[in-house]
C-alpha cells in the first residue's frame, strides 16, 4: 500500500523531459514559414511588377485597417472591452461624409464662399472639412454609445459589456438599414475629390481614361498615397498625444490602474470618454478614406473591415499603438498576397491562420506585453 502510494507519487519526477522534443514544434512552424517564403519568392521572380502591384494594394488595405485598429486598441487598452460596435462607427463615418457631399455639397463650400479660389484649394479644404465633420460625428456617436451602453456596466462582468457591444453593433447596422435612415441599399459613393492614377514605366505618368498602361507598369493612385500619408500622420500624432500630452498621460495612467488614476484626481470616466472619442474619430476618418477608395457603401460596410482591424490589433498586441499599426500592415499584406498567389476566397482563412500561428509563438501578440504571472 505504502509502496504503491510512494511509487505513484514519484511518477512525475521520473518522467522524461519533454523539453528535448521542442524541435518537433519548431520544425513544424519552420516548415510552414518556409513554405510561405518559397511561394512568395517564386512569385516575386515570376512577375516582379505584379508582385509590387499586389504589395501596393496590400499596403493601401493595411493602412486603412491601421486607422480602425488604433481605435480598437485604444479602447481595449483602457477598458479591456472588445468594442464590436467600432466597425459600425467606421460605417457611420462613411455615411456622414456621403450625405455631406451629396446632400449638402459640403466639399464645395470654399468655392461657394470664396468664388475665386483655385480649384485645388477648394478640393483640399472642402475634403478636409468633410473628413473633419465625419470624425466629429463619429466621436460624438461613440461617446454617446459609451455613456448609454458601456458605462453602466463598468462594474459588471466584462462579458455583459461585450454583449451590449454586439447589441449596439446590430442596432447600428439594422437601424441604419431602415428606409428612413440610410436604407439598406448599396449606395455608389460620391467622392469629395477625384481619384487619379499614375503608372510607373520609364518614369511616372498619369493614367488617362480609356488608355491601358503599358505591360509591366506599376500603377498607384492618389487615394492610396493619401491613405498611407494620413494613416502614418495619425499614428504619429496619436503617439504624440499619448506620450506627450497631459490627457495622453492620463490615458496611459488610467489604462494601467484605474484606482490609482482616481487617486491622482483623474476623472476616469472622462478619460475613457475621450479615448472613445479619439478612437472613433480615427474610425470615422478611416471610413471616409475607405469609402473613397472602395466607393460602394451600405450599412454592413463596417463588419468585415472592423473585424479584420480588430484582428490586426490583436496580432500586434492589443493595447499597443505601434502593435496595432504593424498588425494592420501584416493583415493587409497577408490578404493581398493570399488573394494574389493562393486564392481570393481563402484570404480570410489565411489571415486568421497567420493570427493563430503568431499567437502561438507570441501569446500576447507581436508588441504585447507578456501577461503577468500571478500567484
Amino acid at each position: 500500500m505504502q509502496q504503491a502510494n510512494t511509487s505513484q507519487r514519484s511518477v512525475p519526477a521520473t518522467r522524461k523531459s519533454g523539453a528535448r522534443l521542442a524541435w518537433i514544434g519548431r520544425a513544424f512552424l519552420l516548415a510552414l514559414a518556409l513554405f510561405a517564403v518559397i511561394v512568395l519568392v517564386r512569385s516575386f521572380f515570376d512577375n516582379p511588377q505584379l508582385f509590387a502591384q499586389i504589395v501596393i494594394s496590400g499596403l493601401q488595405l493595411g493602412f486603412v485597417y491601421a486607422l480602425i485598429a488604433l481605435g480598437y486598441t485604444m479602447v481595449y487598452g483602457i477598458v479591456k472591452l472588445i468594442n464590436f460596435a467600432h466597425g459600425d462607427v467606421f460605417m457611420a463615418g462613411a455615411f456622414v461624409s456621403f450625405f455631406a457631399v451629396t446632400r449638402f455639397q459640403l466639399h464645395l463650400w470654399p468655392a461657394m464662399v470664396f468664388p475665386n479660389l483655385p480649384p485645388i484649394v477648394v478640393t483640399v479644404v472642402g475634403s478636409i472639412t468633410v473628413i473633419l465633420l465625419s470624425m466629429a460625428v463619429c466621436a460624438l456617436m461613440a461617446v454617446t454609445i459609451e455613456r448609454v451602453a458601456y458605462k453602466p456596466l463598468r462594474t459588471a462582468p466584462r462579458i455583459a459589456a461585450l454583449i451590449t457591444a454586439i447589441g449596439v453593433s446590430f442596432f447600428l447596422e439594422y437601424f441604419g438599414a431602415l428606409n428612413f435612415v440610410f436604407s439598406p441599399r448599396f449606395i455608389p459613393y460620391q467622392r469629395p475629390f477625384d481619384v487619379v492614377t499614375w503608372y510607373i514605366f520609364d518614369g511616372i505618368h498619369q493614367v488617362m481614361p480609356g488608355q491601358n498602361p503599358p505591360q509591366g507598369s506599376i500603377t498607384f493612385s492618389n487615394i492610396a498615397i493619401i491613405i498611407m500619408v494620413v494613416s502614418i500622420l495619425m499614428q504619429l500624432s496619436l503617439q504624440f498625444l499619448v506620450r506627450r500630452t497631459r490627457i495622453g498621460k492620463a490615458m496611459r495612467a488610467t489604462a494601467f490602474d484605474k484606482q490609482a488614476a482616481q487617486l491622482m484626481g483623474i476623472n476616469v470616466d472622462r478619460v475613457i470618454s475621450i479615448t472613445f472619442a479619439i478612437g472613433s474619430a480615427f474610425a470615422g476618418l478611416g471610413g471616409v478614406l475607405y469609402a473613397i477608395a472602395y466607393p460602394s457603401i451600405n450599412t454592413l460596410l463596417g463588419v468585415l473591415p472592423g473585424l479584420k482591424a480588430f484582428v490586426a490589433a490583436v496580432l500586434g498586441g492589443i493595447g499597443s499603438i505601434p502593435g496595432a499599426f504593424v498588425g494592420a500592415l501584416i493583415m493587409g499584406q497577408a490578404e493581398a498576397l493570399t488573394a494574389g498567389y493562393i486564392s481570393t476566397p481563402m484570404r480570410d482563412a489565411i489571415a486568421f491562420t497567420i493570427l493563430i500561428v503568431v499567437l502561438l509563438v507570441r501569446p500576447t501578440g507581436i508588441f504585447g506585453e507578456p501577461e503577468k504571472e500571478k500567484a
Partner: protein
Amino acid sequence: MTETLANPMASAATATTNQPLLDVRKLNKFFGGLRAVNDFDMIIYPGELVGLIGPNGAGKTTCFNMISGLYTPSGGEIILYGQNVAGLEPYEVTQMGVGRTFQNIRLFPNLSVLDNVRIAYHTHAGYSMIDAILRTPRYERMERELTEKAQDFLSIFKLERIQDELAMNLPYGEQRRVEIARALASNPRLLLLDEPAAGMNPAEIVTLMDLIHFVQERFNLTILLIEHQMRFVMGICERITVMDFGEVIARGTPKEIQADPRVVEAYLGKGATHAA
C-alpha cells in the same frame, strides 16, 4: 486501496526520519532583473513545524510559490523525498504531497464550502468521468464516501454547519479555516501555510494555534508557515528561518531568533529593542 489509516505517509515518514522531507538547495528566482530570491537553502525533517519570517517583499511567498510549483525556479533544487521537484507542474507537486494555502485567501468563491473541500479530493476521487456520466454504482459509492470525508474534515474545523454556504459569503476567519481544510484534504505530507493567522484576532489566533498543533499530530504533517504575527510564530514553531531581501539572514529556535540583533534590526524593528 481502501485503507483507513490517518495518513499513508505517516509510517513512511517515521521510517526515514534521518532523510529530510524537504531539502531546498541554492534556490534562486529572478523577475526580469530583480533578484527576488537569492541562494535560498532550507532543510525540513519530517514532523517539524518550521516558520519562515521576514519583512513583506523579502521573498518568502516567492519561495512558497517555487516549492509548490507555481513558479519555475531560476536556479537551484527542491528535493522532496529524494526527488528534485523543481520545475514540475504545480498539480504534480501537489500530487506528490505538498499542500498549501495562500496569503490572500484563494478559495473558489462561487462554490460552496463543501465543494471547495471536495475539489481537493479530486485526484483521489476513485471514479472516472464515464462513471459520472452513467451515474454508475461506483460513482454513487465513491461520491458518497468522498462527501463524507469532506464533511469529516469540515467538522474538524467546525465548519460543518456552513457546508452549503458559498465561500465568498463567509467571514474572513472562516475563509481561512476553509482554506486550511481544503489544503489538508489534498492529503499532503508537507503543508505550506502562507500567513494563516492574518486578519485574526488574538482569541482566534489561539484557536488556530491549537488547530495547527492538532492537525499536525493527527495527520503527522510537516508544516512550513509564513507568518507576521510574532506571538503566533514564536508560540508554535520549532525552528524559524528569517529572510530579508531574498536571502536567509538567520535560522534558529524562536528564542535565538528573538535575540538575534540582525533580525531585530531587519524585521522586528529597532523599536523592538527599545520596547523590550
